[in-house]
């Protein structure tokens, strides 16, 4: 069963077509990558899925539910989380606080409970922390738990960004260029995290990434966008042999 379907999605800003008639299907438990040159509409597509933009035309279905006009918080409560290309973290807070805060929508207790902080509130907070610790362990952030995010290196901040998305316990994870600006070693780490996410936690991953080597290595399925249109899709093997894709990336002879 397909987990997420975008059909005929078109997004226009005035006269500019950011996306035109885009059709994609995300299969559960797989890594689906979206690649394409700069300005091809990759991030716009993620924005449509996560509710930041609403498609001008077309439909986005998540299971049986219609996401086309859902707001970001509705999308996230359905189990879709996103790690941003430009880090969206509280730079002045510690890693731990950033992650705890990201789970605010799982905290269901009243103001009164919070004031007394006994029984339910304490229990919920403890569960919350336990889950966050699981994520910290998974993303190997133990050393940075109590460090202020703003003081960490870019590579580590990126990891925290992915961790922040993970604390929502998503079923579908949207990763927008998680490896941009990283060195080889940091990239290898992130690749391992993504593969483990799929294998150990069974999370479906949608990956927007520029590093073709990585994409070809780890994706189960790839969509190629160019000027807002899908120009190719299939397994990494198919994509490598697709002449339209090669043309879009390397140009004509």
């Amino acid at each position, binding site marked *: 069963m397909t987990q997420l379907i975008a059909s005929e999605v078109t997004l226009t800003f005035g006269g500019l077509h950011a996306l035109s008639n885009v059709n994609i299907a995300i299969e559960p438990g797989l890594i689906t990558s979206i690649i394409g040159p700069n300005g091809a509409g990759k991030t716009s597509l993620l924005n449509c899925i996560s509710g930041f933009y609403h498609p001008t035309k077309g439909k986005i279905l998540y299971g049986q539910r219609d996401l086309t006009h859902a707001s970001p918080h509705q999308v996230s409560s359905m189990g879709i989380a996103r790690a941003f290309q430009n880090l969206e973290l509280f730079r002045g807070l510690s890693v731990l606080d950033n992650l705890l805060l990201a789970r605010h929508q799982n905290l269901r207790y009243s103001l009164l409970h919070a004031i007394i902080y006994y029984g339910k509130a304490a229990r919920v907070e403890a569960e919350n922390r336990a889950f966050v610790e699981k994520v910290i362990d998974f993303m190997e952030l133990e*050393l940075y738990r109590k460090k202020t995010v703003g003081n960490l290196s870019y590579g580590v901040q990126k990891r925290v960004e992915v961790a922040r998305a993970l604390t929502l316990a998503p079923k579908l994870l949207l990763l927008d260029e998680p490896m941009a600006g990283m060195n080889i070693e940091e990239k290898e780490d992130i690749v391992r995290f993504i593969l483990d996410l799929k294998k150990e936690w069974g999370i479906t991953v949608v990956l927007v990434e520029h590093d073709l080597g990585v994409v070809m290595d780890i994706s189960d399925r790839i969509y190629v966008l160019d000027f807002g249109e899908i120009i190719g899709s299939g397994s990494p093997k198919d994509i490598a042999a697709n002449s339209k894709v090669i043309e879009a990336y390397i140009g004509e002879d």
Partner: protein
Amino acid sequence: MNNSLSKNSDLLAKFSIPQLLRWRVETSGDKVALREKDFGCWNCYTWNHYYDFVRKTGLGLRKLGLEREDKIAIISDNIPEVLYIAIGAQAVGGISAAIYQTSLPDEIGGILEYLNVSIVFCSDQEQVDKVVEVRDRLPQVKKVIYEDPRGMRGYRSDDWFMSIEDLYKLGDALHLEDPALFNALVDQGKPDDICHLCLTSGTTGLPKGAMLTHRNYINMGHQLTEVDPLDETDEYVSFLPFAWIGEQMNSFGVAMATGIAVNFPESVETSMEDLKEIGPHFMFGAPRIYETIRSQIWLKMDESYWLNRLFYRYFMKIGEEAAVYRMSGRKMPGGLRFLSWLGKQIIFRPLVNQIGLLRLRRAYTGGAALGPELFTFYQALGVNLKQIYGQTEIVGIAYMHRDGDVRPDTVGKPLPGTECRISEEGEILSRSASVTPGYYKLPEKTAELLEGGWLHSGDAGYIDEHGHLVVIDRISDVMHTANGDMFSPMFLENRLKFSPYIKEAVIFGDKREFVAALINVDPIVVGKWAEDKGISFSTYMDLSVQPQVADLIREAVLKINRNAEKPHFQIRRFALLYKLLDMDDGELTKTGKIRRKFVREKYNDLYEALYDEQITEKRVEANYQYQDGQTTTVDTTIHFYTMEEEK
């Protein structure tokens, strides 16, 4: 406490390690024995829990076919399961052995073949992968047990692998079948059985497996605490590699003999943070650890505000004066005692607390020599740092400093129950209940090692007028200049390394006219210095070729030359190496010692240029290997500097 221990000393001598563990359960079963940080929490395990896990693993291993004297190898970070597996195997008559986590697959294969290992324990997928790589060579390995299931999904269908949880289940099932079996097996153990094979790192060739008995370890732990008593309530943080005798000394020897708690950090990277949270009462480490902590302190002070720096500078002088009294056990004059107390309250207690050493009663260093200045530094801070000296073959310790008698240039006096003497050739010999019966499968080496019933250390040394042992160097490492003057390269290297700007140094000069050095600048301290001075640089290589950096190092060398005891100790020429010496490149041993021959051959071009005083610079090709195995070659220019003759 001391009383009860000495009362127990006869008792201790009768036990094997698992029997001693059982005795701890009987006498203080509910006391915390182990603690591990996991998911941000410190989880406690009492002696009861400890013994339960040991029973589970022991019986599980037996079910897997581990017979008496079968070997089990451990390749793991520091986690409690290492002890469960090792002591569990020992309880059913097996022999444990530990391999460094940094070992490459080929090395691991070689060691597993040599020790004829039948079961391997790995902490995680990283280690399992290495064993899998050499699987074809290892028909005798029946099972690979892993602790962390992460990333093991792909291996699950293959029954060569087993999770530790499944091992526990096997053990529990066997215990249910035959509840008396485990105790009976533990009873069969004798103190003089071999319980562990400790690989000696050795600066050359394949490692040798020193066979160590239960008595070897327990005696060591007992004798150490005869000198420096420990309470059951004391804490120890386990962060040294388990393959090193230094860690086994504490977790097998000291912890079992005294009942202290062993704490396991959350991960290798966080061990210094976790140390801060535990605040251990004693610690043990290679000189490198103390050098790193000192650099941290210097950086902390450097970044602190002016008043702190002022206090630090002033009270450091006071502290150094007071340290001289404290180390020699003499009474301080009243004024100095007051100022030293004041300094402790104002600056040193908070400073030491920030690193987590406030509760520390004693810190030991061993494995290699530590610069005398470091002792003064730590003693001035109020940290009681002492040297110990010994070999793997005598469970790591034969000599140690006593409180109030810390002489920085010596390694102290023999442990109680240890006989020591210097052979006619100047070699240090020892004899005690902790000396190994020999090397596994190497009768010739064993005969050499234990010739005449004494343990031959291979180190040159002498006993000074205070009865302290002074270690010069490896007998094979002592060098002579062309004039026949003797010098120890390691001694001079340590001198150089006392400069905060120098991370590592290699001294040459055997059969040459003078002493010369290849120097690694310290990337952190010199990097910070360069930043402060507004000197821009990109990589370590770039930093090393800055002329200002060379001037900085020249000054440091000049200072050392001025203080040289003998004229031929002076360093005439030096060059700054473009890369840090590294274990992965084979330049250092696993314990961080320099592999001289290898370094000399690898950098032969530089060596020749050091001894050609005409050469001031030379272009060389630098080969780099990244962690992922890629290599690149970079062209760089190395400068050579000649020191002016000092009169």
